[in-house]
């Protein structure tokens, strides 16, 4: 059974809310990364704007009717795979930096 109209509307609303939230997160992550740019802690924060932007991009199509267009799904699948991978790599990179710094494997 496919999505009902109510479910489509719900997905659209939830995704729209998430896009708004992630936009705030993107701005805050830029502020944080710039603020700590001189500190070693900045290494952990630098990948975060990339992560927020990538998560923002993968959520955006769900707020529109785009997903119903013919030929959209294969294109979306490829784009989604690439952009989501960028998000995942940024998250993992930030986490590795956090572990390096906070467990004193690199000087704080």
């Amino acid at each position, binding site marked *: *059974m*496919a*999505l*009902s109209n109510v*479910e489509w509307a*719900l*997905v659209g609303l*939830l*995704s729209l*809310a*998430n896009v708004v*939230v*992630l936009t*705030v*997160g993107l701005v*805050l*992550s830029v*502020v*944080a990364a*710039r*603020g*700590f740019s001189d500190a070693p802690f900045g290494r952990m*924060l630098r990948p*975060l704007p990339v992560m*927020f932007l990538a*998560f923002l991009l993968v*959520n955006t199509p*769900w707020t529109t009717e785009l997903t119903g267009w013919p030929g959209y799904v294969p294109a979306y*699948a490829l784009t989604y*795979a690439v952009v*989501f*991978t960028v998000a*995942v*790599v940024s*998250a*993992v990179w*930030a*986490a*590795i930096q*956090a*572990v390096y*710094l*906070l*467990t*004193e494997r690199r000087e*704080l």
Partner: protein
Amino acid sequence: MTVLVLSGLLDRPYLLLGVVQTAALLAATLLLLYPVIAYAQNVAYTEGVVGLAVGLALVSLSNLVGFLPEPTVRTAVPLVSPHPIVVTSALNLLAGLSATVGVYFFAREFLPGRDGPDRRFDDGDGEGEASGGFETAGEEEVSDAD
């Protein structure tokens, strides 16, 4: 069994990539939480790190729900019986909220309207008194006019 699962995954490159991505997200979650637990004295921004970790955990959970067949998800949530996409978008929203709240704790000392990044080293008799002086100066002017 394992071989069957592996060959099934190799037939579906996107599914295989999804599994790798989810595993990487879970690994990142654990990497972020490890210093919070084992090296708590080093972590100055616990709320920020935990917020990000919870966000990544929720995205991982969302991906895992996405792997499940639709009838499984519909029967798993009895009253609403939603489509998996509804569940994943709800989990993604919670993840976005958590990560954004987390990153706010990193950013807040650099936001306008707050004291500068050196506020923790402030000895307390600098800006606070200056702004208080401004306010009382304004009040004095008003009372003089009266």
